[in-house]
């Protein structure tokens, strides 16, 4: 199956699946309190235990099954690495309508996340983006620093951006690494004083800003412009801190740091998490969790939830992940605070204290 194909005939689901699907969709669309999270999470667990064989084998080994579980906090999590080795899906592969791949090198395996339907994915990405990037109900012109969906059919990020462009943009262009074209478009929009949304990976912003610095270019984008960056510096040979990145963007593009928002998402999840920055009107690293999801920070020493303020591994419970596994253990390090959680780094990022080479834990690209 190639790409994330839309316009398919109606997808046939079992009654159970359809019912769960509809409950999740109502929760995503209607927001708070419509559907109790706990009961729905446990019902999804039963569904996923029943239909996802690798997950069931793991749950059996952990001795956590639908007949023994009582709290959603006990739902066993699937590590993101498992997607590289096993089919994490609740339906036959032949029924796949879309699949997203993690970035792997030619040697390393790529993880695959398959979907029987993208309805929940589409609802979640819209709800979160609208809430966090368009709290003013703006309809910006989007300048997107990634390949187009046609050119990157297995990228969940690119698919998301394609959907958002179609739904929320007054106009949208994809520029991949063509910095000149991106800048030309930005200049043109600037001349027309049209509010712009620049979206891309953190590293694409670095490349564009480096390009601008080399050519002595600075833009002052119109008021009400905004930027969304994502992805961090996983596997890159050069790391730029978030404050430095935002200072670069403010300097070169004229978008103030109070209008730059970080998005945290991954191939293995259906829901994305955003900084609250635009909603509160000032730069913040805190991300809130929407009603159909939960985030727990796991203390790596104990495997149990960490105390507030302590660093640990991010575990996400994403009800929109109906077709695979809703409870995902990431390799990202975060901290939970009273006003949301923040991403701190990658678990595989710690450096050696000695002279040993640390290699091959993640693919490296410049």
């Amino acid at each position, binding site marked *: 199956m190639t790409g994330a194909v839309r316009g398919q005939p109606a997808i046939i689901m079992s009654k159970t699946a359809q019912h769960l699907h509809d409950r999740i969709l109502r929760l995503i669309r209607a927001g708070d309190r419509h559907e109790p999270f706990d009961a729905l999470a446990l019902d999804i667990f039963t569904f996923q235990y029943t239909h996802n064989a690798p997950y069931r084998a793991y749950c*059996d080994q952990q001795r956590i099954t639908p007949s023994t579980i009582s709290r959603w906090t006990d739902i066993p999590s699937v*590590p993101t690495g498992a997607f590289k080795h096993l089919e994490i899906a609740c339906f036959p592969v032949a029924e796949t309508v879309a699949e997203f791949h993690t970035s792997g090198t030619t040697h390393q395996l790529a993880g695959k996340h398959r979907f029987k339907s993208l309805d929940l994915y589409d609802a979640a990405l819209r709800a979160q983006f609208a809430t966090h990037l368009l709290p003013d109900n703006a309809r910006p012109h989007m300048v997107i620093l990634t390949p187009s969906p046609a050119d990157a059919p297995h990228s969940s990020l690119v698919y998301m951006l394609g959907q958002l462009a179609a739904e929320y943009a007054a106009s949208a262009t994809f520029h991949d690494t063509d910095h000149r074209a991106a800048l030309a478009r930005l200049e043109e929009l600037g001349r027309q004083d049209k509010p712009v949304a620049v979206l891309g990976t953190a590293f694409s912003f670095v490349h564009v800003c480096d390009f601008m610095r080399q050519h002595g270019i600075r833009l002052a984008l119109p008021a009400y412009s905004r930027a969304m960056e994502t992805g961090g510096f996983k596997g890159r040979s050069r790391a730029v801190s978030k404050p430095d990145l935002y200072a670069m963007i403010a300097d070169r593009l004229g978008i103030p740091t109070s209008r730059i928002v970080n998005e945290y998402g991954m191939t293995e999840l259906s829901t994305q998490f955003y900084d609250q920055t635009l909603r509160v009107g000032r730069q913040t690293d805190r991300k809130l969790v929407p009603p159909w999801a939960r985030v727990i920070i796991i203390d*790596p*020493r104990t495997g149990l939830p960490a105390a507030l303020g302590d660093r640990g591994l991010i575990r996400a419970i994403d009800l929109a992940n109906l077709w695979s596994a809703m409870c995902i253990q990431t390799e990202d390090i975060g901290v939970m605070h009273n006003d949301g959680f923040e991403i701190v780094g990658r*678990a595989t990022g710690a450096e050696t204290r*000695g*002279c*040993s*080479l640390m290699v*091959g834990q993640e693919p490296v690209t410049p």
Partner: protein
Amino acid sequence: MNPVVLQSVIDRVRRARHRDLSAERITRSLARAAHDAGERFARDADTVALAARATGFSGQMVGEAARLTFGAITESGLRDMVDAEFGDARALDALDEHQAPGLIAHFLAGNVSPPGIVSICCGLLVKAANIARISSRDPVFPAVFVNALRKVDPELAGGVELVRWDRADRASTASVVREADVVIGYGHDATIEQLRAMTGPSRKFIGYGQKTSVAVVTREALVPERLAAVAADLAFDVSVYDQQGCLSPQTVYVETGGVVDPRTFAEALAAAMADYQQRVPRGELSNDEHAAVSALKSEFAFRAANDSRVGIWTPPSSLDWLVSMEPVTEFRGTCLNRVIRALAFDTFDDVRASLVTLQGKLSTVGLSDPTTRTSALESALTGLGATRICPVGQMQRPPLTWRHDGIPNMACLLHPTPSGHRLGT
């Protein structure tokens, strides 16, 4: 560091340098100092505690590190090294004024002590003046050694000064580099490149960057009567220095088709890791370092529930060590801190193919049983840049004659003679 103070240190060490001390005397004094330094660690709890705090190792591991570091620096070991590189100690004494460097700057790094101590010994043996910038993670080992040398042979000890400043103090680094004839850099690859750039083309630069090591356990070792011993030897190689050194294996290739299968070997290795942890505990890890181990455990636990070729072993209620097992793949390192991947292989070509991406980055290969069967593999590993193939259990005990990263320890410090004929090879 205050530039005036630094300059006075440089001047002092140049003045104190003695070109007339015989190589034989230097050898005896270095060996004596190493012995006394080892004794200090064996007897003085405060020294051990200080070293433990700086390195992050447990007190027991500091003791292990001291035995390994100073135990290697014996009279016969030093003589063997001199003989291997120069034929004979008298050749060192016959060194021309122009051949020996005037001042060697050693930039030590990290918490694994042997390379820095050996570096200083080599610098003294070629009768240069030596400035060693010690690392914040290992200030105690070099200091104890040099203090011991001062008591044993103050004249010789005058030829080495230890200095210390933050890596961010590039001005002090630049001052020392400017004065030096030879600059030796240890540490992370990025640091080495910065030092190399600072040294420039007019001075000699030698860099010892990051490397990794692996072990290979073959069918000959996979028999019940040898299992425990091989596992214990490997657990030692893995666990020493908490796996932070370039000689520490991150992966062990285990051959299928033996009397003992790879899973049974992995179980034996796990038992040996637990045993070693009891005797020599691992140092404390930061939350983030713990997170790396935890992430690996999560991945393997899930996979193991679904694939009988995959296994994972950790202590029951901690992450003090980890053994994973899976069919052979392209080489992937671990997060260190006593985390070892076992890869089950069918043919030696699987091992060679797995290690292809480590070209130039491979240090030592611990091989349980070198035989006619392994000779092609050994050639291939040497071709990948492995500088030493040795028995499992000996990976962390390279003789002084071992050429660290393939570079002769001492001959590389010398200039060619005016006629172009280089002393030693």
